């Protein structure tokens, strides 16, 4: 008997539906509310989870196949990089400050995103978004690991990398990034998706990765180029997920619009503050520069962000509330950050430095309206102090913003000569902010932000008790090795000596 049945030819969409959405079922032994308990408390209304459109339709077999290929490439390159002393191909070892900040602050964020996406990948009661979030969860641990693995070889030769795990939890500036991810993870599942999936991945991630990795390529750091571009290939999926999420939520119910808009306002500003450090990396930390922060912002912020918000206007979404303030800050922020990093460099596990004359010429050309007028004079003054043997150090404690946790070093959006400072009194306590954006975020959820762990008060508690040496021990910072000016540092001496070995016959 001929049992041959003619199989229906299934297209990618139908097949993927059977491989994902069709796996789910309506529970009957427990209520949906019991199995998916966090679906209602944020006020988002979803009527039909099956309306979810899967952007990329990767089944697990394809996922394993393509990801394995990426992994093979990645590890082949970083193995070769380690075996061949690839670090001596760097333009200059001061470049490594950017990587040190990345490892201490951003890689832990990748791990946090891994856990956050695992949680939402469980909590959404729709197979489509669950699978997409789970794939992102497993990708994010990949990113944390490839970054640690790529930087592991730098750690063997250079200072500032060795205590990234301790510094993630204890040193003052990493709490900027960690509070950002903690904030997203402690929010509900929908807000998490808008925070990380949409605002961070879609609106801001290109600003982090693309210029950063081009910068690495320009500066001879093949290990970082490789993890960066390899991670970005996953980001393209993640960004698309972020966009699908927001469309899905907005199409489900008109009542969702004000909630989503509020989250976009909040998370754009949170993300803008966290990624502000990238501006310093691009404008100051790359010995050979790719493009200025301003130029990157024009491409990835103004052009792409503009297109995105024009597209979302049909749902009633407006550009984030802080957009104009961000635009006003673009020509100032990298300088303000770097001046801050330089004066507090005794307390950072990376080096800062005074820009050279050549650097300053580049900065004036890229920032014709701001650099010579506001920032060159300060650098010239600092340079004089250094030349006189009395380098400028600010041992005073930075006043940190209660929301973003950055020192309040920014200026008023409309007056670059005036430091911006805001205060709110809540339940008899006074809280400080760096900007209107951060103050608004606090005032919307004060009960959340009063919980923030602020690293400065910690200085006066056990076991530090106000002793700087004790503090350095507590944050695993090796004074005279990890911190301070790059000029005269061990990293500089070693790099130059090793490069000398490679380029001469001594």
């Amino acid at each position: 008997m001929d049992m041959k049945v003619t199989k229906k030819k299934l297209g990618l969409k139908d097949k993927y539906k059977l491989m994902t959405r069709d796996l789910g079922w309506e529970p009957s032994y427990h209520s949906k509310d019991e199995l998916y308990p966090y679906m209602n408390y944020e006020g988002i209304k979803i009527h039909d989870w099956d309306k979810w459109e899967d952007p990329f339709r990767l089944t697990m077999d394809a996922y394993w196949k393509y990801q394995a290929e990426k992994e093979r490439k990645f590890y082949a390159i970083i193995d070769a990089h380690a075996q061949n002393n690839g670090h001596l191909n760097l333009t200059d070892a001061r470049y490594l400050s950017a990587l040190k900040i990345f490892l201490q602050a951003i890689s832990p964020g990748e791990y946090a995103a891994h856990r956050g996406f695992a949680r939402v990948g469980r909590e959404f009661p729709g197979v489509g978004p669950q699978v997409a979030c789970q794939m992102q969860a497993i990708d994010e641990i990949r990113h944390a690991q490839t970054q640690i693995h790529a930087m592991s070889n730098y750690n063997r030769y250079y200072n500032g990398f060795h205590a990234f795990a301790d510094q993630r939890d204890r040193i003052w500036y990493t709490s900027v990034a960690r509070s950002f991810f903690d904030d997203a993870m402690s929010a509900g599942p929908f807000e998490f998706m808008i925070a990380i999936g949409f605002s961070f991945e879609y609106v801001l991630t290109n600003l982090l990765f693309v210029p950063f990795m081009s910068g690495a390529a320009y500066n001879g750091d093949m290990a970082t180029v490789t993890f960066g571009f390899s991670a970005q290939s996953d980001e393209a999926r993640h960004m698309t997920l972020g966009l699908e999420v927001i469309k899905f939520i907005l199409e489900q119910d008109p009542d969702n619009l004000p909630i989503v808009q509020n989250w976009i306002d909040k998370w754009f500003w949170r993300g803008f503050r966290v990624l502000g450090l990238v501006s310093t990396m691009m404008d100051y930390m790359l010995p050979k520069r790719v493009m200025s922060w301003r130029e990157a912002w024009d491409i990835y912020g103004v052009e792409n962000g503009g297109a995105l918000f024009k597209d979302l206007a049909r749902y009633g979404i407006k550009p984030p509330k802080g957009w104009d303030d961000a635009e006003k800050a673009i020509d100032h922020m990298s300088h303000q950050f770097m001046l801050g990093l330089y004066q507090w460099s005794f307390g950072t596990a990376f080096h800062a430095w005074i820009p050279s004359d050549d650097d300053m010429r580049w900065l004036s050309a890229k920032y014709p309206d701001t650099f010579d007028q506001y920032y060159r004079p300060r650098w010239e003054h600092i340079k004089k102090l250094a030349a006189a043997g009395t380098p400028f150090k600010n041992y005073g404690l930075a006043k940190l913003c209660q929301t973003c946790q950055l020192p309040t070093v920014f200026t008023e959006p409309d007056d670059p000569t005036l430091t911006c400072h805001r205060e709110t009194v809540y339940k008899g306590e006074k809280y400080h902010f760096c900007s209107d954006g951060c103050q608004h975020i606090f005032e919307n959820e004060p009960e959340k932000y009063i919980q923030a762990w602020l690293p400065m008060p910690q200085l006066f508690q056990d076991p530090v008790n106000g002793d700087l040496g004790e503090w350095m021990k507590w944050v695993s910072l090796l004074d005279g090795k990890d911190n301070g000016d790059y000029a005269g540092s061990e990293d500089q001496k070693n790099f130059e000596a090793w490069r000398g070995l490679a380029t001469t016959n001594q």
Partner: protein
Amino acid sequence: MQIDLRTVAIQPQRQAFDHLVRRFGDKAASRYQEGSYDIQAAENLHYRPTWDPDHQLYDASLTRIVMADWYALKDPRQFYYSTYTLTRARQQETAEANFSFVESRGLADMLPDAQRAVALNVLVPLRHAAWGANQNNTTVCGYGYGVVFTQPCMYHAMDNLGVAQYLSRLGLLLGDTEALDAGKKAWMDDATWQPLRRYVEDCLACRDPFELFVAQNLALDGLLYPLVYERIVDQHLSAQGASAVAMLTQFMSDWFDETRKWVDAVIKVAAAESEANRAVLTEWIRQWSARAASAMVPVVELALGSGADEAVGEQLEAFKARVLKTGITL
């Protein structure tokens, strides 16, 4: 000028990251160690979850199991993303080759009707159980404590999804979309499947990550995989001339052999930690495995008929012997 950097012999300043030196001594660390140990934030967490303000963002007290160091629960396979993905990519190639072998030679069409029916009736509804397993392992990864414990659960969850997808392809190959529809209907409504579906839904309601690990990965899968893939597919169906089915489920058999070693290692270390842990684990394993065994009886009956009780009974004995090796007497 490209400089020849290989010729430079320079002395490294240190061997490994500080936290790994503290754990493993002053020597080069493995990539598994670098990618797994202490990479979860441990101190000074900023905010309480708005969805569970009584706990911290990472909170070891979400489970009744107590560990002095959660990083003791090492994965013997030492899977980090890369080794995990490369392993599965290889298995995926084999699975692909098996599927295309069965398809290209028309082996699916040559299956005797009775055996095809058994394969479809038993295996297709299990794609839903595998989806349940995926969600349960995602829960453990999301809410468990310590990377060496949670990381493999994410890999396991993706594997569960892979299994659900291979079962779906098997259903399509042997019975087209009608088979998937029939399987889902059975999962929802047939009396045969209700104890198992209830078990899976009870797991979905369980929010103790370690208990869930026990209920899903040890108790249920520890009975389901050997019963279904060894006894029913590899032995029963193959003996009746339907070994093509075994080719389509080779991934599941190999996967179970590999992953059970990890599951056992986790249980063994957790049980050895304290008498209290051992008592909690014993209680959980007893309860969940008894329920899993009785939920499996009607499923196994679909293939083995009246031999189901005996098969499940034997498997339960083998399961007890397996658990005994982890230091737990049931």
